[in-house]
């Protein structure tokens, strides 16, 4: 049986974190899917990235960074429907971590409202957004 919040492997090499269903703290409306190819870690986020969800994302990514060497971290935000400055803090934190590890980070496919927050926060000057 898979425990809520744990990671599992599939044949395609993807491993997906299932939804946190801890009723005491409330459901986190964000799914995280991780894909690792060589030293590139791609994190696919789906849902709402706010203060309630960031600690889960932070823990998941940071755990991956200590498990195996990563030279590039890609955050795919195509399925992120909401983000506020908590998401900006998360991105800056991971960017600094990748920099300290000698690697890089980029953001892919942000929607219009997400891009607006990224640009307003100056992140588009810090890293590649495509």
């Amino acid at each position: 049986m898979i425990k809520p919040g744990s990671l599992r492997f599939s044949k395609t090499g993807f491993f997906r974190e299932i939804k946190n269903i801890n009723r005491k703290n409330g459901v986190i409306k964000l799914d995280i899917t991780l894909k690792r190819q060589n030293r590139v870690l791609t994190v696919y986020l789906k849902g709402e990235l706010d203060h309630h969800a960031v600690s889960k994302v932070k823990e998941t990514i940071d755990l991956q960074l200590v498990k195996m060497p990563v030279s590039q971290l890609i955050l795919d935000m195509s399925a992120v429907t909401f983000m506020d400055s908590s998401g900006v803090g998360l991105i800056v934190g991971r960017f600094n971590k990748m920099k300290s590890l000698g690697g890089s980070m980029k953001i892919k496919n942000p929607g219009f409202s997400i891009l607006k927050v990224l640009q307003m926060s100056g992140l588009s000057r810090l890293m590649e957004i495509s």
Partner: protein
Amino acid sequence: MQPINRMKIEFESKSVNESFARIVAAAFASQLDPTLEELADLKTAVSEAVTNAIIHGYEQKEGTIFMDCILYEDSITVIIEDHGVGIEDIEKARIPAFTSKPELERAGMGFSIMESFMDSLDIESQKGAGTKITMTKKFKKR
């Protein structure tokens, strides 16, 4: 200008209520038929204000957050209030990238986002008494 509708709620200082508050505010504002972009701006600003109350006002401890939404013909005013620790220096808190809690990886962009995504922002705070954020979003005539 006379209000055309008003709604008040209070909820616990829990991070799960950030999405609750922004969805409620957006649902109430939808009576004015705003654009999707205007609604997204409102949701982001409400989320920032509520997160601010949870993290800074109540320092992630128990407390009650009050949200008051007032609709006018072409705008919404949202008031978010906490009875937490208050802000010592409001001008400093408004500076982009300033955060009093760097250990939490906060971007320090909360007030900048509220200011930029809304048409007006007013912050009242007293140390030890709490913080009241009043912000207004105008909706374009369609």
